[in-house]
């Protein structure tokens, strides 16, 4: 519902790089000029992981940093589909529909952007981070279970000055990312914060509560099981906060004003 953009295409991208970041996290760079050049942070691509129909559905993946004609897809191997993706090699083709869905709205001049990622939810925020000019101050937070589950390289953490929390204290702040956010907000007395977030349902639900309590605007990027990706099948429903039906993540989202969606205490579809 934010900066809604239409016009999507099917493009066969070429994998130019693929590497493992940690156990189940892979970082793939794909040359796909038309999608890359038209993408906005927050949008996604709908990826066909192989030829044929096993698995049957495409996989929606957030668009990571874009560099000219290439885009990065960083993904977590969750099941059969992403497992196939992780085994791809440089030079192989990858069939994508994109760019799809809504983008993050850019912060206004007087707003202080805070990026809050949970695990693999960092991907669209890396792209957003790149889209803000250097003179714009920002705060980038990443919550991890532990160092061994990191979703970005140490280089990237340093380069982007990302503050990390981990549940077990193996890297950065010991605790969850909401606690880290609270500490940063209170210690730095940030004026006019605006939060951009993507991560597990439970984290987003807690963030929504937190932001409503403190009256901080927040935008969340949601991930739910999806069919067509273009608003036709209505599979990717997420309940509206006012109880009046559903939004579609593929079309109205994936980026939503957190106050408009019911995150159901983190029990996302």
């Amino acid at each position, binding site marked *: 519902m934010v900066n809604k953009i239409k016009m999507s295409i099917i493009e066969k991208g070429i994998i130019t790089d693929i590497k493992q970041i940690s156990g189940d996290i892979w970082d793939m760079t794909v040359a796909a000029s038309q999608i890359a050049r038209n993408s906005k942070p927050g949008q996604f691509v709908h990826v066909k992981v192989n030829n044929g129909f096993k698995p049957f559905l495409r996989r929606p993946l957030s668009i990571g940093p874009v560099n000219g004609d290439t885009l990065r897809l960083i993904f977590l191997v969750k099941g059969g589909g992403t497992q196939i993706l992780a085994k791809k090699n440089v030079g192989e083709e990858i069939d994508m529909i994109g760019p799809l869905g809504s983008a993050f709205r850019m912060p206004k001049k007087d707003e202080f952007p805070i990026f809050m990622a949970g695990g693999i939810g960092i991907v669209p925020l890396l792209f957003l981070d790149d889209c803000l000019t250097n003179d714009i101050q920002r705060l980038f937070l990443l919550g991890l279970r532990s160092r061994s589950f990191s979703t970005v390289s140490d280089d990237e953490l340093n380069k982007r000055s990302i503050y990390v929390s981990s549940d077990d204290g193996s890297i950065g702040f010991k605790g969850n990312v909401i606690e880290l956010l609270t500490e940063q907000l209170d210690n730095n007395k940030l004026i006019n914060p605006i939060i951009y977030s993507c991560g597990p349902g439970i984290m987003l639900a807690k963030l929504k509560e937190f932001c409503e309590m403190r009256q901080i605007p927040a935008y969340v990027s949601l991930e739910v099981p999806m069919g067509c990706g*273009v608003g036709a099948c209505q599979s*990717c*429903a997420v309940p509206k906060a006012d109880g009046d039906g559903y939004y579609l993540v593929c079309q109205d989202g994936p980026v939503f004003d957190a106050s408009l969606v019911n995150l159901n205490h983190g029990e996302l579809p």
Partner: protein
Amino acid sequence: MIVNANVRMGDIELRTPLLTGSGTFGYGSEFEDLTDYSALGGIVTKSLSFEPRAGNPPPRICETSSGGIINSIGLANVGIEEFLGSKVNELPLDKTEVFLSVVGDSVEDFTKVVERLEDVERIAGYELNVSCPNVKRGGLSLGGDREAVTAIVREVRALTKRFISVKLTPHYTLIAPVAQAAVDAGADALTLINTLVGMEINAETRKPLLGNITGGYSGPPLKPVALAKVWQAAQVVDVPIWASGGIVNGIDAIEFLLTGATALQVGSVLFADPKAPTRILNEMIQYCERHNVDSFTDLIGGLRT
């Protein structure tokens, strides 16, 4: 060799036998950037009800370990008022034939919707969805009742001269009597089949994968079931059959023509491959070239038994 792709059904000529399956192609504009409509003979829209329906609680879609997918959308749609106010303008009337799918919980629901749609110009016809597995009242139970099917078709027939296809469930013990009843009541065609009722669970979490627990099973595993229903119905009715169930390539499509179908609906495959109509059409033409068949129509009912 030029293969004639046209198929005729009464007064309607489709430039190809390929239609989109209801619920998989929205109201026809959602895929406009991705799908080449020239490969389609027509589209069948998302089912339209009199009142708006919010749909079922999510998750609404999952894959299954045996292939294919299960959905439980719950016929989410904007209802007739909003459809006539906005969505009607999105119909791709200049690009292809448009068949509007209609659903309801009662005979009156169907007639109220069709009455309003009669004012929409250039519509090729209706598909009456008497068989959706995802609504508690009506739907499957309504379509499971031969008397109810007869009543719905008869009442809608009395309202319109337009083409009517009736979409039936595969869950009848015998398809032939219901197929015959629909035709006797005035159906111009039959759509076979709607999805099978299915469910999938996660043994680790002991939870169902769908918010509605059960849903409609579609995709490649349905093809043998659909072939059997098309075959059985084709033995008893002489109206065109629109086959629907697991078509993902041109050979699947040809198989349904041979079994007795006149038109072929592509549905779930569009989620994976929005260009499927073009690909399937080309594969069908290649089959015809290989077998020296110069018209798709010549294949209809051509099964050798």
